[in-house]
């Protein structure tokens, strides 16, 4: 199964990864090969099979709705690329 340049460009936007023209050509080949490999799945008969999300079919555990974590904002923000007044800074979104 092949994947088109347009598909790659579209999925790169979805994945928020910048790709240039040369990279798209390389990805066309590599992703095409990977999808060929994956295509073996279509031959499997899975009509009455339930999808498996957890090997032991475990379900999410619930806990009491009480605060257990302490505020560590300073520790977390100390490793951020840019912060100000306890807020994370990003390029301006609204002019």
């Amino acid at each position, binding site marked *: 199964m092949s994947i088109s340049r347009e598909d790659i460009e579209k*999925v790169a936007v979805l994945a928020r990864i910048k790709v240039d023209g040369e990279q798209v050509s390389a990805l066309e080949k590599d992703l095409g090969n990977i999808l060929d490999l*994956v295509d073996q799945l279509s031959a499997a008969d899975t009509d009455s*099979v339930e999808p498996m999300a957890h090997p*032991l079919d475990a379900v999410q555990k619930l*806990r009491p709705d009480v605060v257990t974590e302490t505020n560590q904002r300073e520790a977390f923000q100390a490793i951020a690329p840019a912060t100000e007044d306890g807020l994370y800074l990003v390029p301006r*979104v609204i002019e």
Partner: protein
Amino acid sequence: MHNKSVAELSRELESGRISSVELTQQFLDRLKTEDGKYNSFITISEEQALAEARAADEMRAAGKATVWTGVPFAHKDIFCTSGIRTSCGSKMLDNFVPPYDATVTANFKAAGAVCLGKTNMDEFAMGSSNESSFYGAVTNPWGLSGGDKRVPGGSSGGSAAAVAARLVPAATGTDTGGSIRQPAALCGITGLKPTYGRVSRYGMIAFASSLDQGGPMARTAEDAALMLNVMAGHDPKDSTCIDREVPDYTATLNEPLKGLKIGLPKEYFSDQLAPAMEEQVRNAIREYEKLGATVKEVSLPNAKLAIAAYYVIAPAEASANLSRFDGVRYGYRCEDPKDLMDMYTRSRAEGFGNEVKRRILVGSYALSAGYFDAYYLKAQKVRRLIQQDFINAFREVDVLMSPVSPTPAFKQGEKNTDPVSMYLEDVFTIAINLAGIPAMSVPAGFVDGLPVGLQIIGDYFSEARLLNAAHQFQQVTDWHQREPQ
């Protein structure tokens, strides 16, 4: 001292013949002079290691020592270590110093173990050769005398190479599709991937959350048991971690193997396996027969679909997990972003390497509108078929045995230009992750001077039995004691 096992080092410390500070300094000195040949470490945390060693000596003086107190080891650079850079082998996290410990990290600290540093790995654990690390490839200590630089396997290649080269007696690893077992096999050490949910994933940087599992890498099964005793257990911070009693994995190591029923999956002795490899694996299985085990052939008819299912599920989950690396809260941010979208797309383009980007793109594609059912849902259904094969097999036998990898360690640069040929390296290991069952790699011989691993696969939560089977084998063979020249 560097040739001693964890168990032996622990006895040295207990006898008072050496202090942890002395022992740690010896290992650090050796690590600094020797690792240039292998590049098995990303970070050596000398200062913290010596502080931990001093604390360990005090712990012992106060009568509170455990088996691990004062014993040096290393963490794969995927386990968060408070105050020590945790890079996951990526430029994206080159500047990331976690403000917290992974549960596995905290467990070793509580036991008084001394972490010497963080081992090299494929970027975000995606790889089978340790060539995708931002910090450069790792060289296998085996095969160097032949003049070729060979891969240690991956993704836990740094841990495997460091243990094989006697730089540390033991190191942690993680295994999503074979990343503990394959490097253990290629470097001639002992590695165990536990049952999914046996070891907490909290603070272990996520690749594919329904497959990832941390586990021990050491030279002996006994040391792997000592590691798993510290690593395993329920953790409220990981909702997929199983709440089930942890046995003392060393307690059953000496059980006799008489009557053990071994199954050989015929699909794992296929033409993908090099004949010289098969001979070594079959010799190892004959040793088990001498120990009283019986052998029969079994079939895993859906095993051939494992790689295909894996390369949907793992990239899909990776694309979701790695969306957190956006240049906002931690990690790499590109220079002079012109707007928010530019910041996201360039930070990720510049921060991730090629294999990671490929997998994120495949995963995003498989999860995108119109493709979800055909790829992800289909793969999850195939996953259940694969699991059912193992469940059926374990109705007939106690353990399965097979090779770990189709070939011994290959040369650096041999497979890293073709992603699919690299993926096939994990043909015998991936189904185990999809099923969520435990499996080990045990040194079982050599081909052309390069180590061969025997894979021992067990039913859910049978880690004690696997370690017992490996330990008994190591009582009658010396493959695990061979040292690279």
